[in-house]
């Protein structure tokens, strides 16, 4: 065990200071969600609630109004799952296949394709709102969960392909050759050899994609149907009060509820994230 020299104490104090800074917004939200409305008006951001009340949480989950229905955010919570889970799964799978082809089955133009894809990361999504809407409309997918999943898959693809390609480039080509000689075909190699060793990068992809898709508002609001709106839309409706009293405690509770799944993913799978990044995805 290392001894606590002045230098170590300095390092620890800096680390802890930054922890406090990073945690502040979350702390503000948490504290506020447990305060009553008068308490919020009276105290300051980081003061503890005078009385801890949990009403805001129940209201946010079950009875707050987000339009003409006043059933809180719980329904939207499941809508988000219905959208995020397939979208994450499909985009990760396609990204893995693409990365595998680009890294190990190169053909003329595959690198060009990769470069073009990279540029795709930089396109502001507002640009594609309307043409994508027209496309979805043509295929009858407008305002359906399927359509929303499709949109997320298309624009998530770029990132997952990038991640998997960078990971698979670091896998020696001889492995693929050996498998080919052993009689394995394209898919056998992919499913039996590549995929089993891809766990770290799959974790990175899932974390990244899940966060992106779960937190997305723009696609969620324009491409969802009235009964498939994701939780970010509900949260927006809840928070953007136009008349009436602004219930900050309910807003904050709802915001934390909306953030719980992604927070959970980061806390539980965070270590795989750094491990996955180490495994190659950061090597450009």
């Amino acid at each position, binding site marked *: 065990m*290392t001894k606590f020299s002045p230098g170590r104490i300095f*390092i*620890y104090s*800096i*680390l802890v200071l*930054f*922890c406090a800074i*990073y945690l*502040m*917004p979350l702390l*503000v*939200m948490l504290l506020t969600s447990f305060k009553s409305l008068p308490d919020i008006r009276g105290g300051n*951001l980081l003061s503890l609630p005078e009385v801890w009340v949990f009403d805001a949480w129940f209201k946010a989950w079950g009875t707050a109004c987000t339009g003409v229905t006043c059933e809180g955010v719980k329904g939207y919570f499941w809508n988000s799952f219905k959208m995020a889970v397939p979208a994450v799964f499909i985009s990760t799978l*396609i990204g893995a*296949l*693409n990365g595998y*082809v680009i890294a190990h*089955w190169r*053909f003329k133009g595959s690198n060009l*394709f990769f470069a*073009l*894809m990279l*540029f795709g*990361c*930089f*396109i*502001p999504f*507002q*640009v*594609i709102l309307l*043409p*994508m809407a027209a*496309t979805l409309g043509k295929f009858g997918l407008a305002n359906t969960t399927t359509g929303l999943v499709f949109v997320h898959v*298309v*624009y998530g*693809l770029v990132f997952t392909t990038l991640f998997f390609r960078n990971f698979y480039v670091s896998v020696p080509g001889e492995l693929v050759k050996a498998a080919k000689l052993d009689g394995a*075909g*394209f898919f056998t190699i992919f499913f039996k050899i590549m995929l089993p060793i891809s766990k770290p990068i799959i974790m990175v992809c899932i974390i990244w994609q899940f*966060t992106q898709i779960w*937190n*997305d508002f723009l696609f969620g609001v324009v491409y969802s149907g009235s009964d498939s709106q994701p939780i*970010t839309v509900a*949260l927006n409706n809840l*928070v953007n009060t136009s008349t009436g009293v602004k219930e900050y405690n309910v807003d904050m509770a709802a*915001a*934390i509820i*909306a*953030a719980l799944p*992604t*927070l959970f993913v*980061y*806390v539980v799978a*965070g*270590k795989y*994230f750094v491990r996955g*990044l*180490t495994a190659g995805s*950061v*090597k*450009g």
Partner: protein
Amino acid sequence: MFNTLQKWLPKIILSPSIFLVTVCIYGYVAWTGYLSLTHSRFLPNFKWAGLLQYNKLMENDRWVTSCINLLIFGVLFIIISIILGTLLAILLDQNIRQEGAIRTIYLYPMALSFIVTGTAWKWILNPGLGLEKMMHDWGWTSFEFNWLVSNDMSVYTLVIAAVWQSSGFVMAMFLAGLRGIDSSIVKAAQIDGASMPTIYWKIILPCLRPVFFSAVIITSHIAIKSFDLVTALTSGGPGYSSDLPALFMYTHAFTRGQMGLGAASAMMMLAGVLAILVPYLYSELRNREQ
């Protein structure tokens, strides 16, 4: 027969993605490009206008402001995120107890969207509600922090919030990079008599060049696309002093019925990305090959 199938399989597998990328990225960009040359207002129409929209854009004070803001915001955000991320990664790499917990704390802002944290941030930065009030309550009455409501400083609040959100991710990338470095290099340098700061500065950080590269790419894509951030924090205000191109584009194309102008601004953004990124990508990738 099977033979040829195997040969074509990689292309077949990639082709849906190629198709999607071609249509849903480049096709749509081309469509937007075309739109920027039309008189489109409320919804797209195809009445040819030449470079009219671009001329209008260049004369638009708000557009100029938003471009300057992006430059300030982008440069500061990228530099601060990378410096802070590197610093935290180096500190965390010193056999820290509870490293996992600290790492998660640095990383969690990435998990939250500004739809979620926007209100909290607005409070914290607001002089009457947040940090300034808190400091006053605690007796430090001369404390002043009114960037959010100041014309000149509001764009820097965007930097603060954006750094808060993304520096943890940059930290994770650098931590991963540090873990990937051969420890014998460090030993060799120690034997050569180099101090730890020198080792980091002269040996380890240069080794992390590819990580810098990835970090620049990722943070610059976040900077260019920053939209939720501005809407949640300042909505471009006070006035339009903290407007960014992404917000400009959205506002004009969707709420003001100036789709042609919005399209033109989107094309300018893409051109800007190309102009800055392509030379950087090119030089980086060429350096690496050497």
